[in-house]
């Protein structure tokens, strides 16, 4: 497993190629890229800053990945999360999961994203024409994470 917190952008193809390099057992790669939108909660976003808790962030994500690996049959997992200044259309996060078969890869990838959204210590602050504001956590994210307790 690989977890990276970085300010730099990433190239999904190169990261996925590295993740599956040399493993001919990989039949499926499910991945997710989160992107900065220009509108959030009705306001126009010019720029955002991502703050995190160094040390805990990596541990929290590794624990989420461990949980995913205990639930689904996957081969490897990569999570890259950017911090610092980001603009609309910038990539924020990449989650890539390799597996022999697609069902496990899809489920693990979505599970990791849902848990990351509620358990990994990152905070977004948006710059809008009305000033800066800390993004509020969404109830929909809690619901998305919670549903995994009841399904396989």
């Amino acid at each position, binding site marked *: 497993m690989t977890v990276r917190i970085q300010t730099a952008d990433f190239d999904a193809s190169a990261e996925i190629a590295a993740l599956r390099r040399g493993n001919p057992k990989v039949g499926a790669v499910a991945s997710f890229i*989160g992107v900065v939108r220009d509108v959030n909660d009705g306001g126009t976003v010019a720029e955002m800053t*991502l*703050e*995190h*808790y160094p*040390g*805990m962030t990596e*541990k*929290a994500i590794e624990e989420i990945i461990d949980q995913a690996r205990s639930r689904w049959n996957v081969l490897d997992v990569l999570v890259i*999360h950017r911090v610092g200044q980001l603009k609309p259309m910038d990539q*924020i*996060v990449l989650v890539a999961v390799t597996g022999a078969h697609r069902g496990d890869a899809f489920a693990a990838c979505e599970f990791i*994203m849902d848990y*990351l*959204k*509620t*358990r*990994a*210590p*990152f*905070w*977004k*602050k948006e710059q809008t024409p009305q000033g800066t504001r*800390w*993004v*509020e*956590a*969404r109830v929909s994210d809690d619901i998305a994470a919670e549903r995994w307790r009841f399904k396989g």
Partner: protein
Amino acid sequence: MITVLYFARLREALGTGSERIALPQNVHDLEGLRALLIERGGAWKQELAPGKPVRAAVNQAMAQDDTRVADGDEVAFFPPVTGG
């Protein structure tokens, strides 16, 4: 002594990102520590008041009110997370 960290909106509202605190004898868990900070009044009372959406970690793991806090620990308070 313990280290206490504050992140995001909480860090800005409290005007500090970290401090060292000598744990009083009667403080053994996160709930006790939070009560101690609330006693400072002002922004501390307002931001950490019961019912406020504050999360906490002890030694970099998500924690609850009854999580033990002891000398040498790293405790963090922060708002619900919004990454991803």
